[in-house]
């Protein structure tokens, strides 16, 4: 009896994540998918058709007939969307590389720090999360704007003459800075966990066998940290592609990102169907790296399990 209880209890626990996904991911996605097949209308909500139960089955079928691919066709006709997608992917890619280059030494330093320091260092990496993401991005405006903190500092130390100002805000550079800054912890944490569990005696063994410590980094440390590198890169790349806040606050009109395009489609043009189509395509674009990520994780697990 108890065993039966136990098993159904376990099934219930397993059901929770699926229920979660169903309610908070699949259902909203289906709604968005449906809207993306609708037409814009001056109404509330601003699209047709809307399904309602009052007209019965026939009404449902009639409404279904009205759905079309028009919005998707539209996305291919105006190259704004394609450019936005490509630019988003490119910006996310470059940001991911920069984040990796910045994050790796940070994680490496943390993993090699005396063990009594590590908890504190870890804390420092997580600390920014205590402040709202939005506020932190806003803070960068204060730093990067022409008369901002960076200008003042550079002028004070003489790298910039008093009549010059930095021109970073409202450029793509500012977007890179914002993304790298915001997503750095997502890179550092998986890297740190991969580097920290590495056995230091492996490096000793490599050195003992005649390998220079610098080379040992490339043949031992780096390959062994690869799962961390992959996890970190995906954790940065995937949300960076759809990033809206950072390009909106720090980027200029020249910075094209799909999140911004979607936002203006939704709020400025009030075109819910087209913005839904943009979102659906964005998801499709991201599915590729997500699947790759899962494959990599699976392979890593298989490697560990034998």
């Amino acid at each position, binding site marked *: 009896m108890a065993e039966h209880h136990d098993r159904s209890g376990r099934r219930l626990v397993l059901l929770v994540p699926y229920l979660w996904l169903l309610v908070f991911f699949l259902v909203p996605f289906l709604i968005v998918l449906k809207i993306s097949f609708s037409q814009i209308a001056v109404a509330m909500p601003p699209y047709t058709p809307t399904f309602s139960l009052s007209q019965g089955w026939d009404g449902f079928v009639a409404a279904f007939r009205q759905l079309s691919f028009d919005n998707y066709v539209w996305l291919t006709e105006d190259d704004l969307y394609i450019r936005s997608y490509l630019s988003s992917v490119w910006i996310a890619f470059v940001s991911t590389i920069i984040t990796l280059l910045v994050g790796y030494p940070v994680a490496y330093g943390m993993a090699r720090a005396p063990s009594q320091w590590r908890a504190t260092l870890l804390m420092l990496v997580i600390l920014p999360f205590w402040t709202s993401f939005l506020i932190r991005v806003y803070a960068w405006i204060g730093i990067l704007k022409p008369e901002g903190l960076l200008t003042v500092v550079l002028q004070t130390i003489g790298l910039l003459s008093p009549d010059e100002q930095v021109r970073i805000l409202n450029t793509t550079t500012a977007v890179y800075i914002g993304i790298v800054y915001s997503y750095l912890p997502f890179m550092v944490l998986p890297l740190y966990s991969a580097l920290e569990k590495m*056995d230091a*005696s*492996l490096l*000793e*063994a*490599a*050195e*003992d*066998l*005649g*390998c*220079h*410590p610098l080379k040992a980094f490339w043949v*031992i440390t780096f*390959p*062994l940290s690869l799962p961390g590198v992959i996890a970190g890169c995906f954790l940065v790349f995937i949300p960076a592609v759809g990033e809206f806040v950072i390009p909106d606050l720090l980027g200029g009109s020249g910075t094209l990102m799909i999140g911004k395009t979607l936002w203006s489609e939704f709020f400025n043009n009030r075109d819910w169907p087209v913005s839904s189509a943009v979102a659906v395509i964005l998801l499709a674009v991201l599915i590729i790296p997500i699947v790759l990520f899962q494959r990599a994780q699976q392979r890593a697990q298989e*490697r*560990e399990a*034998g």
Partner: protein
Amino acid sequence: MATKGTAAKKAAPRKAAAKAAPQKTAARAKAKPEISAEKSKMVGSVRRSFAPWTDPDAKPFILYENITKRFGDFTAVDDLTLGIYEREFFSLLGGSGCGKTTLLRMLAGFETPTEGRILLDGQDISKIPPYKRPVNMMFQSYALFPHMTVADNIAFGLKQDKMPKGEIADRVDEMLKLVKLEQFKSRKPHMLSGGQRQRVALARSIAKRPKVLLLDEPLGALDKKLREQTQFELIDLQQQLGLTFQIVTHDQEEAMTVSDRIAVMNQGKIIQVSTPAEMYEYPNSRFVADFIGDINLIEGTISSVSGGKVTVETADAGKLVVNQDLKADKGQTAWIAIRPEKVSIGLKKPAARTANVMSGEVWDIGYLGDVSTYHVKMPAGGIVKALQTNATRLVERPITWEDQAWLSFSPDGAVVLLS
């Protein structure tokens, strides 16, 4: 002890190697008969021509000079001086935490001595980084590269030397054969058993054929048969290639089998360095006597020292005599150390002239098949163990519990220890 047989087997490759070895050894081989002529009695059954430590002119290949290593205020190695000769197979024995690994790590370059210096071939190596030292170490924890196959692990050191690909492949195959892992060549370490991993670590450290090979418990995880085989293969390899081995082991039988000399360590100090047979027959202290093999220690006070004879007055057995040149004072506390196999036991009182006779009650008997150990309780309460070979299956009147038994040992069989 099983070591006797194996030690004898070992003598053959030793001699072969001595022939192949250059001048020095040959000269010493000639000197050998003189020594044996002058001393009619010898220690142990094995006499080897390889004994550079007896040659005052010979320079150690590895020299630890007054080495002290402290971790914080804990002293792991304490003012230790030790010389190891070229082509020597040297073993470190000692309890857990006595500083064996630390000593090896200092030679490999992973720890810096707090005091003292290490000379390799007469040269101070303190400034040489580990990757340039002609020393390879097998780590106690194996430290196999988890992302590389067995073959790649073994090839790693060779690749660092930029050895041609073909030669690497040949050497790797040779090493795999040595450790009997040919069919595991392309496995990753996590797919191997503990003993297999240990063999990969061994193969990896030997592959480069370094001048000095440091092995930290190389065979601990192997079963007895494989361990014995590998021991002989190690000896052969060492002989063929003329390598110098410094090995750590917890297994004293293994140390006796493979070593030219053994050092027994305790709390960061070396207690005794000598050949296996000397170590067994002439331990210099109770610590060593107890550490190597089984031994009876009978406490007493020295009652006379003269003409190579030491007499010790004991509570358990009265006056006992040992043939030994000993510097000691009358009245000093001493221990007679006598191996159980050198104590004979019987139910009849030995002849009147027999030296060192003791008598007591049989307290316990340990039957091991080939031999039996009799624990005999002396009148004063001490236990003396005697070992007897079970030469026949049927005995007319076996010694049994609570029998009054007579023990005796030859004055040549024991040693008197002062510490």
